[in-house]
Structures are given as C-alpha cells and as structure tokens.
C-alpha cells in the first residue's frame, strides 16, 4: 500500500532542494522537550528576491500530492502565481491536505532574512536534510511572541542554554567567552563570568550583571549584593 503524503514528506522534498531550518514545536521537541505539536513550522532559505523564491519553492509545494496551500488567518486557497504576493504580505503560508498543517516561513518572527545563513551554519543537521537551530537562535525566535503557550518552551530552552554556558564558559578563552556572552546572558551566566581567569571576562561579566540589575532583574541584584 502506498504511503499517504505527509508534512514531513513535503519537508524532506523541500530539504532535498533548499536549505530548510525547522522552527516551533518540531525544533523544540528535537532539542529534547517532550510535548505535542499541532503543526510543523519550517524556514526555507529566503535568499534572492521574492519572485525568485516563489518560482523556486512554489513548484515543489504546489505539485506535492494533496498539498493545499492557504493564506494564514483567512484559510483561503491561492494560486501558485500568487505565492510571491502572499508570502510578501503574510510572511508565511500554511499547507493543508497532509497529515498535519505545515507552515512555511520566508521571514519568521524575530529572525531576520539576513541572518538565515548564520542560523543555518550554527544549526544541527538531521538525517532528512533539514537543520535544527541552535538553542539560542530558537530562543530568539520565541523571545517576543508574547504568547503564553511559548512560556514552557522558553523555560526549557533557557535552562538548556544556561547549562551549556555554565559548562563551557569557565574554560573558554577570553575571545570565545566574550562572543558567548554577546549571544546569551542570564544572571547565573554573568556570575560564572565573574570567576573567569581572564580579567577582561570578569570586567565584562560585572558590567552585564549591573545592566541586568538596572533593568530590574532581581536575581542579578541579589548576586551584586552578595
């Protein structure tokens, strides 16, 4: 019996032709959080103009068996010739008709199109050709959504990133430590930086800790009061 067309099948078809980064629930589950997800979210290499993107990506989506692309929100189907306009206006399209909805982004929340190659380079490769963003890029994508449903993901990802930082930062060189602190900062991470062997890292960490305290972070204030 033939396998019915699936969202992950379409993702694999896209990943065989373009760089595809997973986002949302699929990416968070790939990082180890056990939860369910109603749909799948992916970011397809946004390079080139809108019409280039639509002419490359459109044929793969619109010829995939049973795939039915619709506009987000209104859930109205649209023609392949309108893909560039729809993706310009909505930044995302939803594909229905498969085993679950698939959201395909060109310009996702909080991540810039110009950042795609950096996100791709930092991401972990999976066997199906897709990549999972590193924990900090995934956090950035969820940073300002303002949705309660993202809080569990944020708590899980912050804890994971913090564990990784607390393990790596103490023995990192001054340059690497500074680069790490430029990407991710919590009071505990800054506190760990205060114990670094390099004076420049200790100074940088103290400055960050003061900034966090000035922003109102109570954990940072408590560390400074010690």
């Amino acid at each position: 019996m033939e396998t019915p067309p699936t969202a992950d099948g379409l993702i694999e078809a896209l990943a065989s032709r373009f760089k595809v980064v997973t986002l949302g629930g699929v990416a968070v589950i790939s990082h180890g959080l056990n939860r369910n997800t109603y749909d799948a979210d992916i970011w397809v290499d946004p390079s080139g103009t809108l019409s280039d993107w639509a002419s490359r990506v459109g044929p793969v989506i619109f010829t995939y068996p049973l795939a039915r692309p619709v506009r987000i929100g209104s859930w109205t189907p649209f023609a392949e010739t309108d893909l560039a306009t729809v993706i310009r206006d909505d930044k995302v399209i939803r594909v229905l008709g498969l085993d679950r909805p698939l959201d395909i982004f060109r310009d996702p929340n909080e991540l810039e199109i110009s950042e795609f190659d950096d996100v791709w380079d930092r991401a972990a490769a999976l066997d199906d050709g897709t990549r999972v963003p590193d924990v900090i890029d995934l956090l950035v994508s969820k940073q300002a959504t303002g949705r309660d449903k993202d809080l569990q993901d944020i708590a899980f990802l912050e804890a994971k990133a913090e564990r990784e930082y607390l393990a790596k930062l103490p023995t990192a060189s001054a340059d690497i430590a500074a680069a790490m602190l430029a990407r991710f900062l919590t009071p505990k991470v800054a506190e760990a930086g205060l114990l670094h062997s390099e004076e420049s890292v200790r100074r940088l960490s103290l400055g960050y800790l003061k900034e966090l305290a000035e922003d109102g972070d109570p954990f940072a204030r408590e560390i400074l009061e010690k």
Partner: protein
Amino acid sequence: MQQYRPNVARQKWLYSMMKSRALMRRRQGKPEGNADIAKGKKQILDNSEPWLPEVRSVADALWISDQIRKDMERWKLPQPQTD
C-alpha cells in the same frame, strides 16, 4: 547580533516564587535547599529522558508529538495550547 536575555517580568515572577518556596520551607522547619542533600542522603538519579535519545529527522519529532497527543487523548487530559 542579538543578545538573548530572559524577560524581566518573568524573572521577577520566578524570583517571587523562589522566595515564597523558601518562606514555606522555613515555616515548615526545613532548610531552603534540598533537605536530603542537607542531610547528606544520596540523591536518586534523574531518570527523565527524551522519548528518543536523539531526534534524527522531522519525522522523529512528529512521532514523539503524536505519541504524547495519543496518550493525552487516552487519559482524557486537556490538550494544551500548541503552535
């Protein structure tokens, strides 16, 4: 490059919860930290493992999601908001 920092309002909420837990434990005559560690008792190892040791594809991640959804339906648990 953007620097990720935890949301300050959430940090205040977490801090408040931490202080409330510490107050409750003091009122119960318990140490603020783990009571067993304070007594020198050996801790049970963390046994919370991901469903698959390593997700190797989108299909793996969706399989995990589907198993959780099926179990929640079987136990008639309310479905959380999902994306």
